[in-house]
């Protein structure tokens, strides 16, 4: 059954906090198209673990500060 992804992200806020990094700049640094960055940012596409880690590395933050899955906080505490 097709269902929407529950993964949310803070990529837009992180881009803003990093000198208003453009989607094109982020896309170039992680090796994807700008359209893929747009789709990830809007929650229309769940990236692979590798891309997720690459995005976190660009912003120099842990993965959990970029992506969030409902319930993950409650389960770990």
């Amino acid at each position, binding site marked *: *059954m*097709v*269902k*929407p*992804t529950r993964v949310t992200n803070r990529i*837009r806020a992180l*881009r*803003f906090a990093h000198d*208003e*990094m*453009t*989607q094109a700049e982020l896309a170039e640094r992680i*090796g*994807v*198209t*700008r*359209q*893929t960055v*747009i*789709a990830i*940012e*809007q*929650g*229309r*596409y*769940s*990236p*692979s673990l590798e*891309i997720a880690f690459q995005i976190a590395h660009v912003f120099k933050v842990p993965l959990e500060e970029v992506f969030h899955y409902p319930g993950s906080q409650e389960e770990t505490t």
Partner: protein
Amino acid sequence: MSKILYITEKVMTLEEKRAWIRLVVAVAAYGGYVVVVLGRAAGRPLAEAPYAAALLWSVGAAIVAAIVAEVVAGAVNPKASRAKDVRDREIGRLGDHVGQSFVTIGAVAAMLMAVAGWDRFWIANVIYLCFALSAVLGNVTKVIVYRGSFPQW
């Protein structure tokens, strides 16, 4: 205006343009073929209509038209990204998977029709119809996923 705000701009990757081109070409080529064959039948039983040349021209023209359109699409906006990433490959696989089912249906149908002794007209046309449906549904799937969200199962 802040450069960060162009978030929702609808731009296409080269792969999305290719999906649109192949969709339009498949519909136009098969539609043109049907119109020509129905015109040639001119009241006779459909199986007696000359179809072979129209079918071959339709398939050939579709291949050439798709290649030319893709070259033109690349030349019109040379600054557009030609990159193909993991999302493009995933969408491509999904579209091909959807379209593939109709190729199988066409092959099995043609095999059964040949065994049952159907006229070659119907065998050739069921194969071409399934090829066309495969291209249309596969590329419609790609366009929908490019415009919407990737399905999660």
